[in-house]
């Protein structure tokens, strides 16, 4: 394990240093003194495991491809932007637009996420992206979702009305969102629908949550013992009748 401080480094210097270390064979790195450094881990050749102390800046792990980044605190906006593979772990809250256009890998947040988490998430070929949120999410979770899995555990919102915000799954046309707790009908966005969890859903949840719970020291059995609801696309083509050709036969 190699450790260094990012204090007084610009984000370009920090990322340059990380890249050099990984290229020289370093596999485990710990960076302290991170404060607002953007694009942390972006363009980093994997595999490597980076531990971050402090608050990383916008676009943490953007385009991430194969590395593991573990943040020992909160993260800001655009975490895991368009990530392709690898693992992003945040031991705290994350801001808005987590996992935008994510198409592979896993993104684990212990705490809450802001607005528009997991939007445009899509499965591609053999890849299935997974976003797990321990706390709650704000509005527009999983908007335009086209594939992959989002799990919101709602820890700390037990018995309350909102593990998720409004317009969940608006425009969803693929993938699955699992929510522990209750999602009232008015929070479901156009394009998504609520469905009960079946046996195979619980099996999948167990597979996804087991390593997550190990990472954060959570009680898997207790979580799985609670009811989950599922959101799925209402139709793969929600806008089939919206448009009409302005030429040719009507």
């Amino acid at each position: 394990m190699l450790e260094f401080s990012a204090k007084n480094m610009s984000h370009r210097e920090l990322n340059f240093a990380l890249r050099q270390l990984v290229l020289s064979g370093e596999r485990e790195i710990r960076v302290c003194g991170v404060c607002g450094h953007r694009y942390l881990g972006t363009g980093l050749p994997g595999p490597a495991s980076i531990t971050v102390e402090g608050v990383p800046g916008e676009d943490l792990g953007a385009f991430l491809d194969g590395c593991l980044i573990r943040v020992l605190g909160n993260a800001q906006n655009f975490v895991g932007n368009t990530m392709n593979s690898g693992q992003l772990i945040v031991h705290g809250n994350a801001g808005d637009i987590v996992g935008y256009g994510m198409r592979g890998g896993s993104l684990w947040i212990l705490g809450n996420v802001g607005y528009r988490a997991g939007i445009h998430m899509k499965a591609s070929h053999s890849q299935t992206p997974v976003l797990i949120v321990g706390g709650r999410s704000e509005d527009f979770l999983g908007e335009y979702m086209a594939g992959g899995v989002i799990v919101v555990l709602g820890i700390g919102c037990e018995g309350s009305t909102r593990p998720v915000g409004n317009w969940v799954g608006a425009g969803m046309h693929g993938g699955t969102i699992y929510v522990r707790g209750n999602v009232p009908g008015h929070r479901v966005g156009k394009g998504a629908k609520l469905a009960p969890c079946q046996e195979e859903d619980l099996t999948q949840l167990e597979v996804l949550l087991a390593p997550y719970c190990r990472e954060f020291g959570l009680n898997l059995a207790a979580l799985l013992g609670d009811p989950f609801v599922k959101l799925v696309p209402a139709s793969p083509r929600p806008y089939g009748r919206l448009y009409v050709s302005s030429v040719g036969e009507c």
Partner: protein
Amino acid sequence: MESRQYYVPSGCATGGILHEAGEPISGCEIAALMGAMHERSNGLGGGFAGYGIYPEMADCYALHVMYDREDKRRAVEELLSGSTFLVRSERIPTRSTAGVVPGPDVWRYFVQVPPRNLESLTEEDYVVRLVMRINLELPGAWVISSGRNLGVFKGVGYPEDIANYYRLDEYKGYMWIGHGRFPTNTVAWWGGAHPFSLLEWSVVHNGEISSYGINRRYVEMFGYRCTLRTDTEVLVYLIDLLRRRHGLPWTALWAILAPPFWEQIERMRDQHKRAAYTALRQVYGSAMVNGPFSIIIAHSRGMIGLTDRVKLRPLVAARAGALFVLASEESAVSAVLRSPEAIWAPRAGFPAEGVLQRSEAVAG
């Protein structure tokens, strides 16, 4: 009218720090907070508002005036001598700073309003008219702040450089807000930097006001004139109109500036609440601020952070003891708070508020 011709959308970094017990905070603090978000600005605008910085002149309106032209200074001073009791006037001290090309001459005037001049106006209305008159009729002179015991310092440059230029390290106040600008299609000019301020209200803003055209025409119905070529200006006039002249509570302002959606209003269980929110949207539709924004509003008794109703711009709030901080990014908070007890992202359309507990020597 030149001011009708164009306006400039703004992007950017916002920040604010308030000591809720009213203890003085050095201008260095806000400079550090803004400096920590350097990457959010592009050097085309930075500025600050300090509250409680002129305690010895707290009974005077402090007019900060920028001059593009020397002859306009004479015109303004003549106007002020004629229409106010001019207690003190001085050039605001600056120091030469790398990264800041010295801009317009900036002066401050401490004035009182002679009661006999008021006729049927309130003192505040009188000052507002005076500010509008200078900004409209004497182009080349711009009143950039006009409240008591507060002042705005702004210009073209990175915020931390602007702070140095205006020697903010020499000021202390119980509250500061700051701004670093990233305008896209700009005439980078000093008057267009944030904050925008009128009487006790100051606003810094990250975003663009898509509804600007109607917001401006709405406030114009009430005598305000937008002259500073940045959309944010209109926010200050909206606040002055709604809060001071219409006497609405802050809670109603949120319901006007970033109202709940109709579907949310319809779901309100309390019929009185539903009726009130419906009426506010019906009556104040032209005051709704549409488009992406996060703003910090400073007023004499505190500071409020607010984002648009679908949360298209970032804002975090933090608290450590009596210190309340707002910033565009969480990482910046650590520049001024060592171990915050709480850090949170205010929900869309819901304010994060810091309130001054002490009542003496407030700005206003």
